[in-house]
């Protein structure tokens, strides 16, 4: 029996505790005092309290950075987890900012509560190296997201999307749990570090003749883990929920799923594979393919890049287009895992954070347009630059950043990612993946330009009016656009931080 000291545990989890308290406070305020007020006011109060909670957690993380490893990885705190948690909290605040003017629900308190609970789930997810805690926090996150997707009760599409999301998500959780149970059987531990040493011992044990052969148990665990997380990050061929959820969910929920949950999922996916499956990498180099999780991921990445980019070309709805572009971007980001070096981890973090900023902004613009025109069909974007010049300019920046045009953040993200992938294997073994990725980003420019063509080139229909964007949404969107430009022109601002954190965490 291990004695658990609750005081240090609570202290370590103080940021999460702060967010949970804020969530409860939001719910209480909303239900007890604001029931009869207008939705706008309820949203404003709830978002203010929630943002204050998130800001408190950020302050705590910034001012009292602790390094700890509690109970063999059950709860980990180091500069890296702090960095990612701060990024997640910032994304939550920004999501709150663009949801303040929503009118899709009367359950304001519940909406903000779920958003915060999902954030707590992500924070625990990031701060753990133990399969059990990872799984529980993943479920906390996922269940909150399912409800967030379904929260627009007036829309049939929202319920349909949520059901689809739930069913697919449930299945992926089953896969994941199955894989985890195999891992436990293999290593008698749920700690990632001990699993890795079990794999290592197995290799040393020489129970196999060819150095490239995997234990079948381990092989199945790898496959199911990749499938489980493949669902989470919406990589092909496990992407089927993404277009429907992106399309059907209320805009703020979709934005949150596309940004925050992506960051957390990619982070922990990388951690599990690199820390937990160390020793079972294999190789995906052109001339020398060795079984392991790397070639499996290489296939998933290649498929995602191809499918996401090619299918995005024919989309007619802005949100579906963003969904397929998200699948394509998941493919690029998986390359960082294929490379699995410190450099590529830093590149992945930079990429996923800047990607989240750009996607969040794009969703913000889509939400405003959708609210005014009633749907997110691309034809509703015709002549947007003359109806809403500022928003259009921001959309211009977000989409070009997603396409990887300099000097925006997306470009440096891609450059650094591809450079780190190339550097990972000797004699440019991963060049084929990089060539595919660069070729596919040339394709992606086509569909992003199709949207921008509507915005800037097409003339607006005769009867439309100027688009009135709510002030706070506009402020958040402009801030996001500014961040995308700034991080593109001066990538070192963020990169320096990431590199330092990755170095200290010693991954």
């Amino acid at each position, binding site marked *: 029996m291990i004695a658990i000291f609750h005081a240090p545990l609570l202290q370590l989890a103080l940021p999460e505790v702060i967010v949970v308290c804020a969530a409860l406070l939001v719910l209480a305020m909303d239900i007890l005092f604001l029931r009869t007020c207008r939705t706008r006011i309820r949203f404003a109060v709830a978002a203010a309290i929630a943002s204050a909670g998130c800001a408190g957690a950020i302050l705590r993380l910034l001012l009292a950075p602790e390094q700890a490893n509690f109970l063999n990885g059950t709860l980990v705190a180091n500069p890296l987890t702090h960095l990612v948690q701060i990024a997640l909290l910032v994304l939550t605040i920004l999501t709150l900012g663009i949801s303040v003017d929503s009118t899709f629900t009367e359950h304001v308190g519940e909406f903000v509560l779920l958003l915060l609970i999902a954030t707590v789930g992500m924070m625990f997810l990031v701060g753990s190296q133990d399969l059990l805690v990872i799984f529980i926090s993943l479920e906390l996150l996922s269940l909150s997201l399912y409800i967030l997707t379904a929260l627009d009760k007036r829309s049939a599409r929202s319920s349909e999307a949520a059901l689809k999301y739930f069913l697919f998500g449930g299945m992926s959780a089953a896969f994941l749990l199955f894989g985890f149970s195999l891992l436990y059987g293999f290593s008698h531990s749920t700690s990632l570090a001990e699993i890795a040493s079990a794999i290592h011992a197995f290799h040393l044990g020489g129970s196999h003749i060819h150095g490239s052969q995997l234990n079948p148990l381990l092989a199945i665990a790898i496959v199911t883990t990749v499938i489980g997380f493949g669902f989470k990050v919406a990589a092909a061929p496990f992407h089927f929920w993404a277009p429907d959820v992106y399309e059907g969910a209320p805009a703020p929920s979709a934005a949150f799923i596309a940004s925050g949950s992506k960051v957390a999922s990619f982070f922990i996916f990388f951690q599990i594979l690199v820390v937990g499956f160390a020793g079972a990498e294999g190789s995906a180099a052109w001339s020398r393919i060795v079984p392991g999780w790397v070639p499996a991921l290489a296939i998933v990445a290649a498929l995602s890049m191809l499918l996401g980019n090619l299918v995005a070309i024919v989309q007619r709805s802005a949100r579906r287009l963003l969904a397929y572009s998200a699948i394509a971007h998941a493919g690029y980001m998986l390359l960082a895992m294929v490379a699995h070096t410190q450099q590529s981890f830093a590149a992945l973090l930079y990429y996923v954070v800047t990607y989240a900023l750009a996607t969040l902004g794009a969703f913000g613009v889509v939400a405003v347009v959708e609210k005014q025109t009633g749907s997110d069909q691309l034809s509703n974007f015709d002549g947007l*630059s003359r109806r809403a010049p500022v928003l259009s300019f921001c959309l211009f920046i977000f989409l*070009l950043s997603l396409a990887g*045009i*300099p*000097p925006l953040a997306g*470009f*440096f993200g891609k*450059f*650094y990612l*591809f*450079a780190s992938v*190339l*550097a990972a294997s000797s004699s*440019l073994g991963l*060049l084929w993946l*990089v*060539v595919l990725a*660069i*070729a596919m*980003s*040339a394709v992606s*420019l*086509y569909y992003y*330009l199709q949207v*921008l*063509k509507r915005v*800037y*080139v097409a003339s607006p229909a005769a009867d439309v009016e100027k688009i009135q964007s709510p002030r706070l949404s506009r402020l958040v969107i402009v801030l996001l656009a500014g961040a995308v430009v700034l991080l593109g022109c001066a*990538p*070192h601002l963020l*990169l*320096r931080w990431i*590199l330092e954190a990755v170095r200290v965490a010693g991954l």
Partner: protein
Amino acid sequence: MMLAWTIYISFLGALALLLLPKGSATLARSLALLTTIVTFAITLTAFVQHRTGALLTVTQKSWIPSLGIEYHLAADGISLILLLLTGIIAIAGILFSWNIERRVQEFFAFYLLLIGAVYGVFLSYDLFLLFVFYEIVIIPKYFLIAIWGSTRREYGAMKLALYSFIGSAMVLVGLLAAYIVAGAKSMALEDLARFPFPLHFQMWAFPLVFVGFAILAGMWPFHTWAPTGHVAAPTAASMLLAGVVMKLGAYGCLRVAMTLFPLGLGPWGFHVLGLGSWRDVFALLAVIGIVYGALVALVQKDFKFVIGYSSISHMGFILLGLMTLNQLGLAGAVVQMFSHGVLAGLLFAVVGRMVYDRAHTRDLATLGPMNLNKAIPFAAVTFVVAGMASMGLPGFSGFVAELMILIGAWRAFPLFAVCVGIGIVAGVAYIWRAMQQAFFAEAGVEPTSMQPPLPPISIPERLGAILLIGASVAVGLYPQMLLNVILPALHSPLFDGLRKGSWQ
């Protein structure tokens, strides 16, 4: 050093134009003109002051230290000439788009963004920075054509954007690979040029990067974006496209592909169809481009397509000059970059602005009966002068450039030089044909009095035409002006690999 301000002033001008109150078209035009004049003055001052042509560092600051990427701007003789060209074309382009009335501020904002990025490419000495500017060029190009263009503008714009992006994707692969192979410590041009890349690596990286850049330079068979793009573009954009953007490609071929991977030009050790190296292959493609462009220009019905295909032909000369790998040919290629930039700008200005904006047609058969030489004599005279220069008559810049390239090619590839002769003859023919059909056709019927008279050539147009003709004549009469700065640049350490390797 002031040169860096060419970039900043252009970008600031673009920003200021967007912030300007709506509805002041004249103010917007004047501001844009002022911006380009200031940048031109800066480049001219630098050109006059810096007579040696050696490398001149403008700024060098650490940018992304963890990757060894620097914000490094510098100029040598070659970049100075192209900067000067950019300045001239930028001013002329604005003078020739004085009549833009729709969304004026946005037009000039995109225009200045494009100009600033072009300055940036010519000034960059860090390859990451160069690539950044090189890609910034794509986006304003797309919108300039798609919004303000004519014939099949959206198709032409998208085709151009995708071709450019595919080209730059190829360049990116090559640069990334070079960066990694060299140890991922620096993206500086001189560091990478000094690094001894393995031969087998250079053998695939060189054609990749070279073709990536050459797509933008209109190399046959990757040229098809150029005629459609030129035709669809508004006058100023086609002037910029032919005048400077295609030069970006040629500049990249010389500055990046050839200096980084000089061994890639060497012999393969075997022959396929009589070709023994990438150098032979690209020289052949360049010659095909020269002849093909000229012959296709000969049968076009659309006046602007004639000029569009003539650009392919003239850009072929540049690529051929690069492939000669001797001092004469390389210097000739740089002079041709300047010369073609000025002349293509002028020809597009005559066709797009002076003729098309007045007659509203570019069909040669329809233009003939309009008696344009009487209606707009200035346009006719300008076209004759520009045509003569473009044919390569002595006294104009085209003559010097093409002569140098021909002599260079004669030494390197005698057989190709003969083929080029066919291209030159065809070049005379298509200019002659276009001139005759558009301006001096025998008017079969009397011009109907129903037609309103064409508006006269305006002052800005005259100024622009005089500026461009003046530039061409100045170089034609005193080519030493350019050669004095080109030759030292070609002898700088940057081209060491090329000189030691395959130089003849």
